[in-house]
């Protein structure tokens, strides 16, 4: 029996909760309410948890496509900080403000934006509770929670991250700035080590781009220094030939790439693998990852105790009805990367489907998603990987289209300009800027 269907015995209770939630929400959110472009009866209430590439996009597109959908976005940070392009901040080629955007434009588009932390989800009662006690009722809930870290898998890492001695910089923001500051504080002749977890992790090319940005900085400013790239995987996981070319062409003598070098334990300045102890002045450990905590609390983590299974036609959880999940937290279709671009595409599938579901109409049976990831290999030169994924009705998943997609022929400044333009456009697309 599904407790969430209107005919279920819990329906009267649910109606009470919805009424109570509406009153509470109305009080708590009066200051945030923004008049939307539409009037008339609401199609329904959607609460979105997480204001990153997936969450902001679904909020924006629900307003754009849904007409009078009541959309509330709950985000714990005051502003959006983009992981894509943030490796340029690590390299010293951009400031953190360059990859930060506010939510005012999204508010102007009619999305109620609430800064807060969702601490509990009640799928039967269809409501979420924030840390400050506010309860928000929903007809449809969207979780775009991103990832959290499995720091416990690396000995000593939790304590080192808590103390700030080691940074992950795998969620953009203060961590990005902290890594940059550690690099600038390091004397010339120092050693930097970056560790890459086994796949799957957020942004497959990201660690290799970061290696290039750090090496580029060292080459220009601290040429006696070294960068060790400790990869738990047997080889470079994205754009392999292009990254290897960049390592050889630009960073020979500075960057050393070590495959099958999983970091098992860290102290303040040593990373231990099965083979040796790597001493480093700056240790950037990218920890193993899983769907973020709130997904666990919502009961939607049903793949390998780590990720969220979804119905790809609606992005609805296969574990809990009424909860849609986007982005890095999902167990992906074949060849589907955990990327901001892909989260944006998930969000559009979800927005279209949720509008149809609220109207009681059939959802699109033939959705398409695509991905483009640009990576800087020097301050200006960029490489890409692209893919297009069509829904396969027989196997109920997105599949890459044979013969489509691919990588750059070579790194180029032209693609460097496109990478920055991509960022401007996707940030505007998600934030209604």
């Amino acid at each position, binding site marked *: 029996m599904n407790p969430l269907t209107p005919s279920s015995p819990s329906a009267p209770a649910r109606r009470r909760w919805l009424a109570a939630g509406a009153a509470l929400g109305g009080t708590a959110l009066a200051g945030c309410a923004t008049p939307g472009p539409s009037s008339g009866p609401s199609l329904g209430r959607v609460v979105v948890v997480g204001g990153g590439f997936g969450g902001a996009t679904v909020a924006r*597109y629900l307003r*754009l*496509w849904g007409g009078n959908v009541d959309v509330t976005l709950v985000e714990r940070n005051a502003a959006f900080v983009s992981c894509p392009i943030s490796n340029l901040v690590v390299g010293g080629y951009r400031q953190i403000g360059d990859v930060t955007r506010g939510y005012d434009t999204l508010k102007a588009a009619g999305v109620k934006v609430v800064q807060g932390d969702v601490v509990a989800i009640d799928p039967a009662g269809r409501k979420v509770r924030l840390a400050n006690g506010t309860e928000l009722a929903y007809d449809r809930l969207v979780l775009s929670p991103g990832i959290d870290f499995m720091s416990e898998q690396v000995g000593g890492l939790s304590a080192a991250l808590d103390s700030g001695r080691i940074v992950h910089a795998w969620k953009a923001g203060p961590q990005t700035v902290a890594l940059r500051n550690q690099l600038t504080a390091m004397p010339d002749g120092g050693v930097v080590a970056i560790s890459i977890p086994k796949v799957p992790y957020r942004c497959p090319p990201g660690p290799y781009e970061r290696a290039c940005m750090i090496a580029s900085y060292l080459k220009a400013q601290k040429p006696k220094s070294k960068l060790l790239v400790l990869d738990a995987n047997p080889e470079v996981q994205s754009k392999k030939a292009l990254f290897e070319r960049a390592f050889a062409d630009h960073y020979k003598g500075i960057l050393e790439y070590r495959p099958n070098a999983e970091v098992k334990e860290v102290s303040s300045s040593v990373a231990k693998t099965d083979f040796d102890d790597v001493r480093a002045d700056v240790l950037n450990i990218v920890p193993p990852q899983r769907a973020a905590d709130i997904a666990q609390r919502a009961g939607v983590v049903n793949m390998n105790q780590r990720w969220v299974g979804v119905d790809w036609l609606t992005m609805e959880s296969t574990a809990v009805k009424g909860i849609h999940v986007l982005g890095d937290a999902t167990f992906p279709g074949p060849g589907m990367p955990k990327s901001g*671009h892909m989260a*944006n*595409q998930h969000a*559009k*599938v979800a927005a*279209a489907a949720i509008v149809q579901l609220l109207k009681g109409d059939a959802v*699109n049976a*033939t*959705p*398409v*998603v*695509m991905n*483009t990831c640009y990576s800087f290999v020097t301050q200006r030169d960029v490489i*890409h990987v*692209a*893919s*297009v*994924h*069509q829904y396969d009705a027989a196997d109920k998943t997105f599949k*890459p*289209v044979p*013969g*489509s*997609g*691919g990588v*750059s022929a070579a790194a*180029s400044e*032209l*693609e460097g*300009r*496109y990478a*920055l*333009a*991509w960022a*401007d*456009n*996707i940030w*505007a*697309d998600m934030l*209604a800027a």
Partner: protein
Amino acid sequence: MNTPLRHGALGAIASGLLAASSPALAQDATLARNLAATCANCHGTNGQARGEMASLAGRPADQLLTILAGYRSGAIPATIMHQIVKGYTEPQLQLIAGHFAAQKPVR
């Protein structure tokens, strides 16, 4: 990839493609909207792009389809569009082009 769109190299072969599209698909404005939204990450919401990316909003459908056909065949050089265009069917590209043609051009 921006040259043909920026400088408006035109062709006329696409009107034939449009005529061949299935009426059921052509009528599906929602599907067209959804498909076109997959382009927005680079080309802007509803094809209204910023900066260096080509704006698609308000461009005639046959012009867009001619350029896409050029990417597919290799006749028009590209950094990435030759790889992306091959992921979509011809009817899908027709819907996408029709959607962008109906949008307001960027200010």
